[in-house]
């Protein structure tokens, strides 16, 4: 399983900005989402308390921020930017991991460096042209030998992507293919187009990451051939059904049995042979479609069945973990946000006490508070950064959920292929018994009538054809089984590696080293303050 490019976590790029707005919107004052959000809190103050002095909160905090000798006054600002500590701590880790992923060094041809095996795709500039549909500019950088040029650019629309996906799933049955983006259109607005762009990019990159698909002709054609997409939609259900319908009456009236191209016949009866199509559909419907394990077909491969169960269990657990991960991320987000708001509320209180102080005790109190405030605000920021990274890591789970869908689909391919084989087998035997019956009658009547003999000949020919088709189907089925097996091995290995990386990344990320240090330093300071306070009170009582 190859991950998408880490450089552009588009989906979650919004959240930091959003969170920033949330933190700022304390009193409904309009605050801009620039990075120095803490100072905006101060603007709110000026809104509500016109009596406040021009001394800004920032100045109070920065000038007296002497609790860490290693920090210069500007470092407070640096904490307001998305902390670079995050990058320092695991930037390198991510980098290595990223290299591993882009290196494709798992199953495919070269285990060497990226140079001879490179296929990068980028989807940009959606344009709703003169027509009503949107086209996307798809740029490819590659040095794979199959491709004519190193860099190419084409414009494609979404239905082209759908065609590509259909063609690939027809040609590569049994493979764990990435799920193509959803066809449904919610609302044709900017947001939707952008989301679709992202989805298309993700999808194409996943295809590019698959060791077999990336070398496919279909993908190459899609990426390089200019103009209208020349992928022939041979397996378009609609058109073939129409074709098939033409032949239907002949079959029903039994006039002649159409000679069927075995390869076409093999294809899940979706193709030209309507009768078989309906028969298979009926059987599937009775026994459950595709991936269900309730097939009457004897799945002789026990090992396969076991693996299937395990994979289903895995899917269940992945779904579960994915849900819990989402709620974990949300909780982390909430706590960071509330911490920030508390900090801001205390900032206001501090400022208020400092300005309105009549007694010394008030000034002392304000100072105490200030330490907590600073730490609280910084903690809030750190939580936010933590979350962004957590999302990145745990997103692996979502990716693998997607993979599970691909697995299910591949298993469907297998079941369907088996269904085809068995259907053809039963047809052969049906034809055979019809032949035998006719032959038996023919022998009784000496010489037999011409029509009957002719009929027997026709049936025999049909049987031969069907038998050929059946053999073809068996070959296809075996191929699909083999594909399944290889893919499963690939999946297991990649999943293992990816999950290891995910765990490590997640754990490393959760160690909030700086947070820890900050509160400790603060705690010590407050302790000394306490001692001073006691002394002060004791003295004033005497």
């Amino acid at each position: 399983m190859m991950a998408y490019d880490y450089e552009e976590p588009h989906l979650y790029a919004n959240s930091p900005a959003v969170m920033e707005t949330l933190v700022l919107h304390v009193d409904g004052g309009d605050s801009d989402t620039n990075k120095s959000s803490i100072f905006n809190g101060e603007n709110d103050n000026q809104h509500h308390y016109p009596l406040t002095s021009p001394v800004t909160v920032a100045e109070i905090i920065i000038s007296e921020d002497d609790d860490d000798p290693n920090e210069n006054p500007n470092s407070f600002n640096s904490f307001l930017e998305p902390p670079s500590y995050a990058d320092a701590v695991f930037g390198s880790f991510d980098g290595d991991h990223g290299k591993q992923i882009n290196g494709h060094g798992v199953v495919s041809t070269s285990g060497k460096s990226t140079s001879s095996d490179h296929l990068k795709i980028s989807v940009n500039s959606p344009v709703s042209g003169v027509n009503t549909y949107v086209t996307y500019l798809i740029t490819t950088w590659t040095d794979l030998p199959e491709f004519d040029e190193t860099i190419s650019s084409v414009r494609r629309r979404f239905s082209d992507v759908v065609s590509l996906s259909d063609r690939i799933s027809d040609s590569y049955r049994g493979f764990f293919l990435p799920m193509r983006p959803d066809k449904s259109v919610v609302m044709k607005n900017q947001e939707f187009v952008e989301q679709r762009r992202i989805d298309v990019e993700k999808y194409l990159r996943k295809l590019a990451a698959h060791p077999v698909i990336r070398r496919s002709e279909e993908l190459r054609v899609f990426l390089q051939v200019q103009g209208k997409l020349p992928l022939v939609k041979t397996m378009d259900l609609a058109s073939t059904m129409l074709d098939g319908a033409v032949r239907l009456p002949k079959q029903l009236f039994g006039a002649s049995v159409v000679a069927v191209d075995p390869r076409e016949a093999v294809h899940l009866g979706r193709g030209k042979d309507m009768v078989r199509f309906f028969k298979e559909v009926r059987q599937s419907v009775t026994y459950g479609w595709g991936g269900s394990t309730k097939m009457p077909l004897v799945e002789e491969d026990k090992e396969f069945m076991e693996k299937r169960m395990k994979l289903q269990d895995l899917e269940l657990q992945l779904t579960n973990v994915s849900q819990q991960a989402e709620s974990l991320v949300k909780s982390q987000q909430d706590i960071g946000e509330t911490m920030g708001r508390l900090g801001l509320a205390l900032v206001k209180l501090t400022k208020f006490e400092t300005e309105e102080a009549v007694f010394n005790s008030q000034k002392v109190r304000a100072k105490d508070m200030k330490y907590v405030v600073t730490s609280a605000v910084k903690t809030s920021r750190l939580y936010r950064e933590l979350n962004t990274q957590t999302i990145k890591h745990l997103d692996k789970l979502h990716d693998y959920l997607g993979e599970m869908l691909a697995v299910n689909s591949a298993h469907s391919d297998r079941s369907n292929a088996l269904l085809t084989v068995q259907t053809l087998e039963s047809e052969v035997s049906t034809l055979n018994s019809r032949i035998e019956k006719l032959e038996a009658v023919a022998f009784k009547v000496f010489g037999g009538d011409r029509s009957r003999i002719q009929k027997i000949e026709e049936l025999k020919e049909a049987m031969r054809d069907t038998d050929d088709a059946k053999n073809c189907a068996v070959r296809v089925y075996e191929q699909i089984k083999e594909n399944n097996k290889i893919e499963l091995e690939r999946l297991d290995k990649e999943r293992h590696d990816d999950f290891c990386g995910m765990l490590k990344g997640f754990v490393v990320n959760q160690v909030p080293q700086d947070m820890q240090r900050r509160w400790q330093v603060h705690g010590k300071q407050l302790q000394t303050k306490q001692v001073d306070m006691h002394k002060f009170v004791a003295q004033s009582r005497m």
Partner: protein
Amino acid sequence: MQQRSSTGGGGGGGGGLQSPRSPSSQPPYLSISVTDPAKMGNGVQAYISYKVITKTNFPEYQGPEKIVIRRYNDFVWLRDRLFEKYKGIFIPPLPEKSTVEKFRFSAEFIEMRRQALDTFVNRIALHHELQQSEDLRTFLQADEQTMERARSQDTGIFKRKPSDLMQIFRDVQSKVSDVVLGKEKPVEETNPEYEKLKRYIFELEDHLAEAQKHAYRLVKRHRELGQSLADFGKAIKLLGACEGDALGTAFSELGAKSEMLSIKLQKEAHHLLMNFEEPLKDYVRAVQSIKGTIAERANAFRQQVELVETIKLKEIDLNKYRLTRSEKTLEAEHEYEELKADSEEATKRFENIVRLMNEEIVRFQEQKTQDMGLAFHEFAKGQARLANGIADAWRSLLPKLETLSSS
């Protein structure tokens, strides 16, 4: 808050009651604890009772130790009496009545209330004037029937709830707006320092209330995060069971850590509630109590002013009667004398309140600085502890994960 219940008035920090009648060489102390909440009664009538244990060597008290059973309404009674009698002093605040039925008997609510009640009585015991209150003695020593009688008696003229005082204060405020609308002359002090103080108190309440609101939310967030970690841990463990071998073990250890951290978070949430949010809440209540005192002062001021006005009018009448040698003269003179006496009393009362308030505000500010200092310290300590715990837990997993990916 913990400090006070143990040391009481000892060590000279307790207001220094130097009673000349105290025979013992021991320094005087009055220490109270509110404990053992117990549910009494059934259904709608059900309530919580508390054991109130008093330890003292004050001569006015019946003995060195006394235990009585009290309920929340008894505490309310005490507060109202003190508020009546000791105008000018900032009476310690009480925890609120709970309106939400199902929350009323939750363990956490009861514990928070118990702690607040304990703080309440001990603050009274430490206050150099309040500790001498007869009502306090009644509260601490009387048997339950006497207490009940006293409580029911007071549903008369003397019983004034803070909300009533707020109403009075609002009346005062509305009188100000009347002036703006040109209706009446305002009957308010024109002391600029006092004005500043009043503004300060009102603004302070707003700030504190907001901080407290967020503090409470933070407690909830801790709990929510704890819950999420627990659920996540469980789910990860199950996933680990699917994977098997080294990866599976790694998953299940991660899950276990996650569950462990969940517990830490719940603990921290409780600590944050008791040691940071509650003190903040207490601060808010204290400020609200001060507002009550401010209303009392305004009342007293108005009474004084009104009496002065009335006396002036009476004087005019009296002179009229004297001139006309009316038979009403004698009566009028009586009334006049009475009014003068009342006026003197009113003035004394008002001045007393002013004096007391000035002392109280100093005491209040110092006390609050101490309280808040402690609260912030606890907050920082708790967060450091939490951050440490989290860091340690995750860090301990790293070596295993290292070996995992290299294998």
